[in-house]
Structures are given as C-alpha cells and as structure tokens.
C-alpha cells in the first residue's frame, strides 16, 4: 500500500468476558491494538443488554469499522449494519448472515463474518496428545458448555480417534464425548479453584495431557504442574507460552485461534478500501488457526510424531483428510 493516510477508526464491541479474559476478547483487542492502519478502541459489556447500545455508541462516534467480538453480538451487529450501510462491520465467531422468519439467511454486504475452523487445529492437538501420552489417557474440559468451547473439544477427541484408527491404539479421552455431547465443565469461566480440582480429578484418572478450554481456568493447573510434572497442558486461543506466568515447562502446545490476525486483516481491507462482506474462515490453510510451536517441550516430542502431525496438517489443508 501507499504511504499511510489517516488511520481508520476501529471499534470493538466486546462480549461479557471483558478485555482481560485471556481468551477471545483479549485476543481481539490485542490484534486491534497492533493494527498499523487503525486507531482502536473498545467497549466492554456487562450483559447482553449492552450490545445494542454499545454498537450504537460506536455509530455515533463515527467508527469506520465496528467489530462484534463473540457470536452473541451477531444479531445486533447485523441490525446495525443494515441501518448503516456505509459503515464496515465484522463479527467474530459468526457468519454475519441476515436471516428471515424462516431462517433462510443471506449475507449482508457490509458485514464480514470471521469464523474459525478451530477443530482442525485441535484435531492436530488430539493426534499429538495421543502420540505423546504414556498412560493412554488424555483429557479435556471446558468452562461452560458453549458451542465455541465444545468445538475445540470435538476436534480434540476426533484427533485422538484418528490416531487410534491409524495406529490401532486405544488412547482414550476423558471429559468429552462427541456422540452424546456430554462432558466435564467448571460451570463458569472464573472459578479457578474448581478448575484446579477438576484437573486433579483427571490426573487421578490417569490422564497425562489436559486441554482446558476456558480462558484463565487452566492457568492454575498449568502452574501447579511445573512442580508435580504429572501432566502436560495444551492451551487454547493465543499461544500460552507468552501468556502464562507459570507452567511454560509443561506446556505442550496451543490450539491457536488467530482472532487478532483476522481483525488486522479486516482493518487493512477497510483502510485500503478493499472491504467486502465475504465470509472469512480461519483455517489451517490460511493460518487463521494453527498449532503453536512446542517451545520448551520440543525436544520431548519424537521427531516421527512431529512429522506425522505436519503431514496430517498438510492433508487437511489439501483437503485429502476430512476431519
């Protein structure tokens, strides 16, 4: 692009988790802040009742790009977009479609959906875990049974299943069942003490790799593990290696969901007047999602397993492996 003109005004309407949730709100905000073409600001919501007024406040402030962070805000984003066709909108974790009474949906021109095929990456994490486990048991749990949470767990379980199929092994996954859609949850995203106890429950069942899907919830066990070394942790959303204050030495990898990258992408589209409402799907292919490096544990992951994981990734990208 040519020499930067004035930066665009990028406004994030956050979900109720708050900007410091070590999860998608935080990822989105950090991405927005680091965008070179935009001045970013955000509004936090205390409940879903705040979504509409927050968006309206952005419209009044003449934001040029308004991004709803979280599927819950989709409805209000679409409504506002239809009323303000000149403003560019985006919505994280939703396709931003406008549905009629019969639930026939069509895309809205000025809304870009930012969705992620998260299970592709957690599939890799599942395969990796199955290859790494010594006890033959791995585990996953969530904060609350939201679909944006369970999609990680789904992919993870399928990854393990795939490993079993390929290798003829019997690694089992505790904490989630893809057919009954039932599993282990803390019940909220704040009670870290309960999450720690739950993780210990997995440990007692013999699981030696745990994937917690719940923002901060997994942090205490990751930290505790540094002493006990009983299990490895897999983080989600943003690479836990830079994020976690403790537990790096037992952090196997992270199922990365590049919300920030996708937001920077939309921002630069808007700045360069290339914005369209076409759906964005973060995949392994476009690096919208990825499996983070193994960092400190790199040496412990067998080279063969590394290769296999890379191969599966390529197969998924190529479309030859359907997960």
């Amino acid at each position, binding site marked *: 692009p040519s020499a930067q003109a004035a930066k665009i005004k990028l406004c994030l309407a956050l979900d109720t988790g708050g900007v410091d949730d070590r999860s998608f709100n935080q990822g989105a905000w950090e991405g927005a802040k680091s965008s070179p073409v935009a001045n970013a600001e955000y509004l936090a919501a205390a409940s879903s009742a705040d979504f509409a007024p927050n968006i309206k406040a952005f419209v009044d402030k003449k934001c040029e790009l308004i991004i709803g962070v979280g599927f819950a805000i989709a409805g209000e984003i679409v409504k506002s977009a239809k009323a303000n066709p000149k403003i560019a909108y985006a919505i994280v974790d939703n396709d931003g479609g406008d549905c009629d009474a019969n639930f026939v949906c069509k895309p809205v021109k000025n809304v870009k959906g930012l969705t992620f095929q998260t299970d592709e990456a957690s599939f890799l994490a599942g395969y990796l875990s199955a290859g790494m486990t010594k006890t033959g048991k791995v585990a996953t749990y969530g904060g609350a049974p939201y679909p944006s949470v369970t999609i990680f767990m789904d992919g993870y379980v399928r990854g393990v299943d795939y490993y079993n199929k390929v290798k003829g092994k019997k690694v089992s996954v505790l904490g989630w069942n893809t057919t009954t859609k*039932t599993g282990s949850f803390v019940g909220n995203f*704040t009670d*870290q*003490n309960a999450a720690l106890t739950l993780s210990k*429950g*997995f440990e007692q069942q013999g699981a030696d790799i745990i994937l917690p899907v719940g923002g901060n919830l997994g942090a205490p066990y990751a930290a505790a593990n540094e002493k006990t070394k009983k299990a490895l942790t897999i983080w989600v959303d943003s690479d836990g290696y830079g994020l976690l204050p403790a537990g790096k030495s037992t952090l196997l990898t992270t199922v990365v969901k590049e919300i920030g990258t996708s937001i920077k992408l939309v921002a630069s589209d808007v700045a360069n007047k290339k914005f369209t409402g076409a759906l964005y799907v973060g995949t392994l292919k476009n690096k919208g999602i990825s499996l983070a490096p193994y960092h400190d544990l790199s040496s412990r992951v067998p080279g063969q397993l590394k290769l296999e994981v890379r191969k599966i990734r390529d197969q998924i990208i190529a479309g030859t492996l359907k997960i």
Partner: protein
Amino acid sequence: MKKIRSNVQKRRLQGVIIISLLSSLSFLYFGLLKPGKDVTTFGFVLNNEWVIIKEWIIASQTGARIFSAISLVASALAIFAYKKERTIVFPVAIASFGILMSFLTWIASGKFIPFTGLLQGGLLLSIPLIFGSMSGLVCERSGVINIAIEGQLLASAFVSGVVASVTQQAWWGLLAAPFAGAAISYLLATFAIKFSVDQVILGFVINVLVIGLTDFLYKKLLIPHQNTWNSPPTFEVIPIPILSKIPVLGPIFFTQSIVVYLMFAIVAGVTFALYKTKWGLRTRAVGEHPTAADTVGIDVNKLRFRNVMIAGFIAGVGGAFYTVGSVGAFGKEMTAGAGFIALAALIFGKWSPIGALFAALLFGFATNLQSTLSIIGVAIPSEFMLMVPYIATIIAVTGLVGRVRAPAADGIPYSRGGSH
C-alpha cells in the same frame, strides 16, 4: 382418631421413609433390574500412604447389591430407632453412604473411581466455603448479618496474591490476607454498628464495591504487570509424619497445605470459643438479646465490632486459600459466588460451626462427585450435572433440616432505649 406425632418424630418418619425407599430402589434398580455388566474399580491410594488395598475391583452388580443390602439393613435399624423414639442420624448416615456407594458401583461399571481423590477434592472445594461460613458465623452469632463474605474473600484473595507476588513469599500473602478481610470488616462494622445501616444493603454494597475495585485493579495493575504483581508462589503440601500415611484419611486430612490445617484449627477454635469461653457466652448473648447483655455491663456494640473484625480475619485466610493456597494467581471474580454459598451453608448448618462445616463439606463433595461422574463419562447433559450440588443442597435443606432459627437479634442494630 389420628395419632399425633411430635415434629421431631414427624421429621424422623419422613427421613425413615425416604431412606428406606431409596435403599429399596437402589437394590432393585442397581442390583436387580438394570445391573452394571462390567467390573467397577475403586482406587484408594493417592500419594505414598501405606497400602492396604490399592485398588478394589468388584463386579458392578455384586457391589451394588452389597452396598444396597448394607443400606437396607441400616434402614431397618433406622426404623427400629424411630420406633424407639431415638435419633436416626447414624443409621441414616450409613444408609446414605450405602446408597451412594451402590450408585457409584453401578454407574462406574467398567470405570475407575478414585475414591480417596473424590473425597480429597470435595474437601478442597469446600475450604473457602468453610472459612466464609465461619466468618459469617462469628458476625451473625453476635447479631450482625454478614452478606459481605464474598467481598471479604475476594478482597483478601487479591491482597494475598499481590503481597505474595511482590515478596515472592507465600507466607507474607497469608499474613496480609486477614488484614484485607479485616479492612472489609471494618467497613461493615463501622456502617452497621456505628451508623446503623441496614446490614443486608450494606453487605450487598460491599460486595459490589470489592468486585468493582478488584476488577479495576486487576485490569490496571495485575494484567499489565503480571510477573511482578500477580505471580504469587503457593504453599507446599506439608505431610504430617505418620498420620499422612494412613490410608484414605492420610491424603485427605494430613497431606495438605498450611491453609487447610488452619481451616481445621479455626473450626475447632471457633467451636470451642463459642460454647466454652467467656467470649463465646457473651457473643451468643449479644446476638440473642443485646439489651439483656447490656444490663449486665457488656458493651454490646464494642463486642459486635470486635467480632466483625475477627470474622474479617477468618475470611481473610479463606481468601488467601485461593491465591497462595491453591490457584497461584489472582483471577477476576475468582471467588465466583463462594461467599453466597458459604452464607447458605451457615444458614443450612443452623448457625453452628459444626453444622456449617458439614453443610459446606456436603456442597464441596456434591460438586466433586459431579465432576468425577462427568470425567468418567456419564451421559447426562453437562448442564444437569452442574446442577447436582445445588439440587443436593435443596433436598438436604428441605428434607433433613427444615425450619432454622437465626440468632434472635441478628441484623438489628443495637442502641439503648431503641427497641425492647
């Protein structure tokens, strides 16, 4: 003419009927009609305690029958005790245990139940609740309603986390936390006692203030500088020599961090002090009939003030449990409503320390039981599993506890000649 029973007998009858019914049902269902087909494995060893049995493997059906049979026998004993107009607490406790075990052997057919871990986890989940309800107890026994338990826990978790992080000493965090709890108490005491503010409003407001301020500081201070401000070390587990080696009991009671031992000490201390010492006598007097206490020269408001402060110290240790005892960092709103559950436990336990202790333990155990079941893959929708501790509490409160009586002067500010 219908036979008239006393309320106690009525409640006993209710209990006897429920327990007998459940025992029979569990025998029928788990033992005969829908038996588990596989074996169930119970694990007993958690750390390095002496091993008597490491694992106990039993055919699910047989196990369910054995345990149901135990509960049936206990139910019969309960009926006998009821007939003799004696307490049915012990047979009912045994029967409940039998039913629970029978259920576990049935549902975990083909699975593993870490029995010791199940109990230990339940205890750990109830630690903050116990501290919280002891704080409530010391306040309310002297006549000040404490709804600010949540605020006390959260504020002290915050302060202990920050202090321990800055000093890199868990001990400093543990020492600082009670003062944070006491600071909240100071607010409660001053406004409730000195300025006669409605104590329920006050409690809610204090919670709101603490949540607001800790969220704010978390965002402004702890997130940007997490390595300095929010990386507290946690206490190591201190196994008590010999005792920690006892199977089952050792890992639960004698292989814990200092905060858990403090919990036992505080419950024992509060129980002793409340019923056996001068302080306790006066505290209870002031909570029941402050004017009467006043007429024998007890300074009602001074004692109440002091007790509210003590309560703050107690809750403070509970707050420290979160950061330096367990989690190892402060998290936004990490108490997640524990203060309110503690309040419920206090009421459930009829404002007695032991009662509150058991109520909190029940809640913690129910929570961990549902976790364990979800881990072994019980195909009940997770949302319903998560309801288990709350439903269990409702059943226990309505079925076993019934009417409770708060200290008579609880919540009423005292001023001379004000009320009589």
